[in-house]
């Protein structure tokens, strides 16, 4: 029984792996790869142990090594001669082990996978629901293909123009890189909310005082001060603009009184019933504290 099974396995091996049998007479093609007869073994199928250490450093792991082994035999990746590859691979693992490579673990996992595939190849292949024969190598092939895609993508990206190798950033000297801080945006509503807060916090007396204030008087006070900044001496009559009407006159008058109360200016009259002037009381301060 065992003998029979073995025979059968050997048969399937020869079928699926046409390159397997090397004990063929030299005149005959010992292998047929993709319909092409081979009368000689590829000269570089095997890497001598002395070179292994060097070459392994050039590999990015077991998949990379496997890809190399397959490619060295000019084989279709979809038609991996699992027996040969496994033999070779395991041989490398042995040497690797001797050299105590830290990478060995990953290579061992691959060796186990190869051995598993190899053993499954020896057995009749299971047939799935769709009636297709399942190739034990399918998963390995998928992984190899997947890896190869990214391997070549890495090679491609390595050829892209790269800063410091193919091009250099152009920059010019700048005399000063001084900051220029942009002032923030302020919304009127923010101001109003802030005002409400202040009013709410201010004690009752101040709060009422503010509420009583009429903006137009405040506005006029600012206006008067502006005039006095330029002219230090202004005729009282000139402050009133008849076009502002009665209300405007009242506002101006209130503004004058308010400013006099704050001791900003004085009223001056040189003679009785003569012209009244407004005299600014602030000439020294401006230059000293201005900015």
């Amino acid at each position, binding site marked *: 029984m065992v003998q029979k099974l073995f025979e059968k396995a050997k048969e399937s091996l020869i079928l699926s792996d046409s390159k397997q049998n090397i004990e063929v007479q030299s005149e005959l093609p010992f292998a047929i790869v993709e319909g092409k007869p081979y009368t000689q073994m590829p000269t570089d199928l095997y890497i001598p142990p002395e070179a292994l250490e060097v070459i392994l450093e050039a590999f990015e792991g077991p998949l990379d090594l496997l890809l190399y082994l397959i490619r060295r035999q000019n084989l279709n990746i979809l038609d991996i001669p699992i027996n040969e590859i496994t033999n070779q691979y395991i041989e490398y693992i042995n040497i690797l082990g001797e050299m105590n490579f830290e990478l060995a673990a990953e290579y061992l996992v691959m060796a186990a996978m190869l051995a598993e595939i190899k053993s499954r190849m020896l057995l009749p292949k299971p047939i799935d629901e769709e009636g297709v024969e399942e190739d034990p190598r399918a998963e390995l092939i998928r992984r190899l293909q997947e890896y190869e895609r990214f391997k070549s993508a890495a090679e491609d990206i390595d050829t892209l123009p790269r800063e410091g190798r193919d091009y*250099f950033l152009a920059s010019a000297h700048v005399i000063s890189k001084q900051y220029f801080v942009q002032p923030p945006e*302020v919304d009127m509503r923010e101001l109003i*909310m802030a005002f409400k807060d202040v009013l709410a916090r201010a004690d009752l007396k101040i709060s009422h005082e503010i509420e009583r204030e009429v903006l137009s008087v*405040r506005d006029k006070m600012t206006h008067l001060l502006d005039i006095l900044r330029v002219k230090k001496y202004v005729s009282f009559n000139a402050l009133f603009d008849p076009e502002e009407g009665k209300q405007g006159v009242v506002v101006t008058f209130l503004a004058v009184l308010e400013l006099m109360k704050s001791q900003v200016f004085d009223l001056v009259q040189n003679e009785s019933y003569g012209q009244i002037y407004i005299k600014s009381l*602030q000439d020294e301060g401006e230059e000293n504290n201005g900015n």
Partner: protein
Amino acid sequence: MEIKQIKNIIEAALLAAGEPVSIKRLQKLFSEQELTHNDIAKAIEQLNQDFTDRGIELIEVASGFRLQTKTQLQPWISKLWEEKPKKYSRAMLETIVLIAYRQPVTRGEIEDVRGVAVSSYIIRTLMEREWIRILGYRDVPGKPAMFGTTPEFLDYFNLKSLQDLPTLAEIKDIETLIPELDLEPKLKNELEQEIKKEGFLDQFQIIDDEE
């Protein structure tokens, strides 16, 4: 080697180096072409002429030649590093609003209302922004400055005059109109969006009409 190619290489080298490059160092780039010191100097001179109409200029400093941006472009270039504006603090907003409503007002008066000191930083910032100015000095001990707002302040808020500032009555009404002030920030945000959509001034109009 054509002079144009030499100029291009020198230009590219000066821009790539990021530091001044001496003629000697430039000469090394052309080791295969065996250009003389003179060849390089001539190319640099020509290059300099090419820059007359451009945004950069060639300058010779102690350690060699360098390319730099033209000074007259500085006002634009410096904007590259503009910082993102930070929001004004509550203290800043309260100060500006008090100056607006109570001008001419001294720092002491602002402090009386706010109940806390007004920092010099706040006054300086508002002065630099040209939103406030000194209207004069009160004739009392210490001669405190009286602050007022500027036309720029009015412009910024699209106001024709101080009288266009919302009146206290309107502010009170806003309070009843936007009662969300102490609500969840999210809700507040939504309401604010609503208001923005509606147009703030229209809202005011409505309040006014109702009065």
